[in-house]
């Protein structure tokens, strides 16, 4: 059974590139266009890891992390922030909200894969 990963980003090309990298490694990939859409996609779907952008319309990444941590089914799902943001302040916010890692775009596929493999739920 392939493991599922949810990628949340308002940019279609980022979702595509993440999709290519992860599918090559055998993961199933679900896409969300922003925080709100991500929460909808999560309902009733088992995911083993979430990758999320920070700056998105409707609901930003940090808020999404907080919202996911409130959901009992996904409390322990690891969340990786994938963003152009590199400011320490934003990173601290991400860490405080419960994210497990902060990856600055652009990412190298093999590096993202190693982060995923390290953190993904067994």
């Amino acid at each position, binding site marked *: 059974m392939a493991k599922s990963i949810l990628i949340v980003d308002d940019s279609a*090309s*980022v979702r595509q590139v993440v999709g290519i990298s992860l599918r090559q490694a055998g993961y199933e990939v679900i896409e969300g266009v922003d925080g709100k859409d991500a929460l909808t996609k999560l309902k009733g779907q088992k995911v083993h890891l979430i990758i999320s952008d920070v700056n998105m319309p409707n609901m930003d990444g940090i808020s999404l992390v907080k919202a996911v941590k409130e959901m009992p089914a996904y409390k322990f799902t690891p969340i990786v922030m994938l963003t152009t943001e590199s400011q320490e302040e934003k*990173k601290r916010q991400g860490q405080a909200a419960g994210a*497990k890692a902060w990856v*600055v*775009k*652009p990412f190298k596929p093999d590096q993202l894969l190693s982060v995923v493999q390290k953190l993904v739920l067994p």
Partner: protein
Amino acid sequence: MSSTDFHAMNSVADANLRLPAQAPGRRRLFDLAAWQCSAVGAAGGISTCAASGGELWSWFAAAGLLAAGVLVDRRHAALKRSLKRATTDYLVAAEGVGIDVLPVWSDHIETSRVQMESAIASLTERFAGIVNKLDQAMRASNMAGSSTQAEDQGLKAVFSNSSRELNAVLDSLREAMASNSLMREEVQNLHRFIDELRQMAAEVANIAAQTNLLAINAAIEAAHAGETGRGFSVLAQEVRKLSAMSGETGKRMADKVALVADAIANARRSAEASATREAASITGCQASISGVLDGFRGVTEALSESADVLKRESLGIQAEVGEALVQLQFQDRVSQVMTHVRQNMAKLPEQLSQSRIGYERNGVLAPVDARALLAELEQTYAMAEERQTHGGGGAAGAPKAEEITFF
């Protein structure tokens, strides 16, 4: 921010223009400052008249001073009006840039951004297709068998299995041939027995002949003995019969031996012919098998080599794919920067309108606040190169892909 936002803002600015005129009290009907030179002239004239005690020349002088004052004032007022008109025209024109030109710039930027986004999305999709096809090709090639395959899979294994089995067939053919030659040897040995049997048959015949002679001699002796030899001559007769019988048996044995010798000779000839045929056949088989295995080996080696080449190349291709995937992510950054710029551009027309309205209502000339605009722009920054460019570093190059932090 789209051009509709721009137009909405502009129509608000236009609406401000059409508001009813300011309360009449604001416009002073009698502006003392506008007549200050006239007042000075008047004061001068009055003091001249007073000082001269009302002389005629002083009245002319007074009138002249007043007239000069009034002229200066009116000149001043005219200059002020023309300056105000020029300033208003300038501010209206500047506002016009904000209303007409900036939306066009903004729309061009947005068009470019959208086109780039859709082109890159399409490119990325094609790329995904290529990556998939490469994967499939790799899988198919692996099944065909590269040199690093496990020994029990792939063409190499099929080849060694075939080789083993064919050689086993050859071996069993050789074994058959070996046992045939054993058989031939046995048959050769039979020949010796035949000779012995012949000899024995001859001895039997000899013994029979000798016995016969003895019996004849015995009969003669018996005849010489007369009546006493009669019993003996009967015995001699019987012995002659027996020796005749053994003579017969000996002859029959010799005949049979001759037959067996013939049969054995035939068998020998047959066996030798068959052995020759078998040897030729085995040689032929061996050559055939070698040929087939050689051809097979050639094919498997070529295939194995090309699978190895594909495997090596694919490592290089994987690296290229990784690099390309990094580059494809830049569309997102570029898009963000363009959006931030457009958002900031949208603030300018409002400021230009406010400038004009402020001057028309209050006569106060408020400049556009560049610092505030830059500060608002800076607030929207999310990326390091945006801050670098803002800091006066000129256009920034693309950042490296490296930063990962675990919490």
